[in-house]
């Protein structure tokens, strides 16, 4: 057995860095904090790679399956006799895979930020938050139990909140951060309820126990039925709700586009590569339970994923803010991953979807981070987010241009880039399980190619825009990460995921299914072609099209009015129709009652003052009648 206990440092280091930078950075080394943060993360990255290497290549397999290794575990809080929240490190294929992915992207983003954020006010704060985020995200993926995951789940939420609102003087950023936090918080409520129900039924939080296909948790089946579905299904649906929120699936996706108000490196790291896929990771983590105890919940996962990917792709076609396009694209791609999980089975080839999902998660992280960082470089150069104000940038930003193109091709699923392989596996999995979903995803693949190249052409080709000052290529700290990630995007498709990351930890055979692969490549090319026609040069076709599908375009452009719906719910329903009435009720009814008691007392006091009239004879009258009344009462009435 290999000793993995050093992996706890993967968690501890970023936390310590956060404390260091957060508490002392501002005062003592504001300039150095970037380097310290980046250096720290480099160490972590190295540790992660070592771990991954050791885990995948030197650790023993049992019956050909990768084992789940609890590298470190302490009881943090004992709740009941059986339920206790532990903090620890769990190593299994997906967590190690995530470890590698996160540290890689994170390191790139750190390096990139050294350049991107240079001179910004709050430089050290930025790196402190990044460290906090790294800590949280790593804690999330390494969680040994579902409650630890929830803890770090909340922490990533908060780091995301802090980073989105990094420019805290910008009202839109503040709004966005608030929105992100509250929407995900609402989703997390579901997660928490799911945990409660799950733990009530299974009496454990521990992943290993929970997801052991032969374990008690799964063996006991779905539990009693409640409103037509088994309790287990309910709990898994609730848990999935957390994932929906964090991964910006419909209907909790609305925070993601707004989250682009944060600094671009943050968007790349958190809102493209790592945090947003936490939902996928969550489902993957709980996958055996979904597969065995709550298949209905798994269907929900699939349909939500599919719908979200389509929905987002349609919207992405109409947006002009490049970061927003990328955000919708992210949502769409995560929809893919969800769908893949949703159509997957457990073990062997049935688990193709699972593998595909993880595969796509990995590749997507690379190319989406690349896209965002590229976008960052562009924005850095031209100081605008809107592609309508860009054009012809290929001349000014050659490196960015090349890497961006690679990323676009990757996401469009053009072989032999990595996106092709992972997306192909997903389509294959869908094809085998659910033709309807396959059709949807097939369409989405085309849409993806279209809007990505719409973006690409609008930025780098298109009209020759006049800029205030000539855009220039970003510094090396920013371009090197682009290049590294581009390399990653190209080659990660070659990693044999079917041998490393599978639903049951065992190797299974996959092959390129041409019946799926060829049409998908074709539709990708078709999308690129249309985009080429429409956006290669300035043309009126897009406007015409928009005019033709007036209402459809308008709805899509306005994101199907989801924001307005939410605004309506929050402002009108919660604020106007619940909170204010509650406050009114409290002031006037509850408090009013208390005040009324007081004023009635006062009033009675005033009314009865006539008894004390100052007239001796009235006093005597009361005296006499009082005595007589008492006598009558106690002699004749109440003896």
């Amino acid at each position: 057995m290999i000793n993995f206990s050093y992996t706890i440092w993967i968690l501890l280091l970023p936390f310590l860095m956060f404390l260091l930078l957060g508490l002392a950075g501002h005062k003592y080394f504001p300039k150095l904090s970037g380097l310290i943060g980046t250096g720290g993360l480099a160490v972590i990255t190295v540790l992660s790679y070592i771990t991954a290497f050791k885990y995948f290549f030197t650790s023993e397999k049992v019956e050909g399956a990768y084992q789940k290794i609890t590298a470190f575990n302490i009881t943090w809080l004992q709740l009941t006799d059986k339920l206790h929240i532990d903090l620890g490190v769990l190593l299994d294929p997906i967590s190690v895979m995530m470890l590698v992915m996160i540290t890689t992207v994170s390191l790139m983003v750190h390096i990139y930020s050294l350049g991107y954020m240079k001179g910004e006010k709050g430089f050290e704060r930025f790196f402190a938050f990044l460290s906090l985020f790294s800590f949280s995200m790593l804690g999330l993926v390494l969680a040994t139990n579902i409650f630890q995951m929830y803890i770090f789940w909340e922490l990533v939420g908060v780091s995301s909140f802090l980073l989105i609102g990094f420019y805290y003087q910008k009202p839109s950023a503040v709004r966005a951060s608030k929105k992100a936090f509250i929407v995900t918080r609402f989703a997390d409520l579901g997660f928490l309820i799911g945990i409660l129900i799950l733990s009530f039924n299974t009496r454990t939080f521990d992943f290993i126990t929970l997801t052991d296909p032969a374990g008690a948790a799964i063996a006991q089946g779905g539990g009693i039925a409640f409103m037509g579905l088994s309790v287990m299904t309910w709990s898994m649906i609730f848990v999935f709700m957390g994932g929906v929120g964090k991964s910006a699936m419909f209907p909790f996706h609305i925070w993601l586009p707004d989250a682009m108000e944060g600094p671009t490196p943050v968007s790349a790291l958190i809102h493209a590569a790592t945090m947003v896929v936490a939902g996928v990771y969550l489902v993957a983590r709980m996958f055996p339970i979904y597969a065995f105890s709550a298949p209905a919940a798994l269907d929900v996962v699939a349909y939500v994923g599919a719908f979200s990917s389509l929905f987002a792709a349609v919207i992405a076609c109409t947006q002009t803010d490049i970061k927003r396009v990328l955000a919708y694209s992210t949502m769409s791609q995560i929809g893919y991953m969800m769908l893949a999980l949703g159509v997957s089975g457990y073990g062997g080839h049935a688990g193709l979807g699972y593998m595909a999902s993880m595969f796509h998660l990995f590749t997507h992280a690379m190319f989406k981070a690349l896209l965002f960082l590229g976008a960052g470089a562009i924005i850095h150069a031209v100081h605008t987010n809107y592609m309508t104000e860009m054009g012809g940038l290929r001349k000014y930003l050659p490196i960015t241009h090349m890497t961006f193109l690679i990323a676009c091709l990757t996401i469009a699923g053009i072989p032999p880039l990595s996106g092709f392989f992972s997306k192909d596996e997903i389509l294959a999995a869908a094809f085998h399980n659910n033709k309807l979903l396959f059709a949807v995803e097939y369409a989405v693949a085309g849409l993806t190619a279209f809007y990505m190249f719409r973006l690409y052409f609008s930025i780098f080709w298109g009209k020759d825009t006049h800029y205030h000052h000539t855009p220039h290529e970003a510094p090396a700290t920013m371009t090197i990460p682009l290049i590294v990630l581009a390399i990653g995007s190209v080659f990660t498709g070659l990693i044999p995921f079917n041998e490393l990351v599978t639903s049951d930890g065992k190797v299974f055979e996959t092959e390129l299914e041409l019946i799926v692969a060829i049409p998908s490549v074709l539709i990708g090319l078709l999308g690129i072609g249309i985009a080429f026609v429409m956006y290669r040069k300035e043309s009126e076709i897009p406007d015409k099209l928009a005019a033709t599908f007036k209402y459809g375009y308008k709805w899509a452009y306005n994101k199907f009015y989801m924001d307005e719906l939410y605004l309506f719910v929050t402002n009108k329903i919660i604020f106007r129709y619940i909170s204010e009435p509650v406050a009114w009720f409290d002031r006037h009814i509850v408090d009013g009652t208390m005040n009324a008691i007081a004023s009635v007392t006062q009033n009675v006091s005033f009314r009865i003052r006539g008894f004390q009239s100052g007239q001796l004879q009235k006093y005597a009258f009361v005296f006499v009648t009082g005595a007589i009344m008492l006598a009558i009462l106690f002699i004749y009435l109440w003896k």
Partner: protein
Amino acid sequence: MASNQIMFILFAAMIIVFSVLTVTSRKILRAAVYLLFVLVSTSGLYFMLNYQFLAAVQLTLYAGGIVVLIIFSILLTSHISQKFESSGWKKNVFSAIAAITGAILSIITILDYKFSATTEAAKEVDMRLIGKSLLSVDYDGYVLPFEVISVLLLATMVAAIVIAKKSGPAKTQSPTLNQE
């Protein structure tokens, strides 16, 4: 009808009639005189009940002392012939209701009760017995109240002095004796 019954009815009638007159007469001096009649009739009842000593005390102290005191004070504070207005009918009616209710309640309750006399022999009330009892320190002796009442009377005297005594200059309100 025996003579004592007639006497009782006579006294009772006088007491009731003059009592009512006392509390209703609109001339104050007349009221005082009616009160005197009531007190005298009462002493008549005492005689009937064979409490001659008490009847005498009643006549001297009450009829002689208190009524005179009252008449003096009337003379000091009112015009003799002054007729004062009767009080408001509301007050009269309610007071009457209260008084009548009380009376009915008491009478009903009294009539309801079976009185039983003691079986011990009656004591003759002669002056010697009264004197002995009044100075006796034993059971059924009244020396202590007798002494205490003297303190009471002393205190009353002092009290009357306190009220009447002029002392120090008037500060807040000047005396406003009506010198008509």
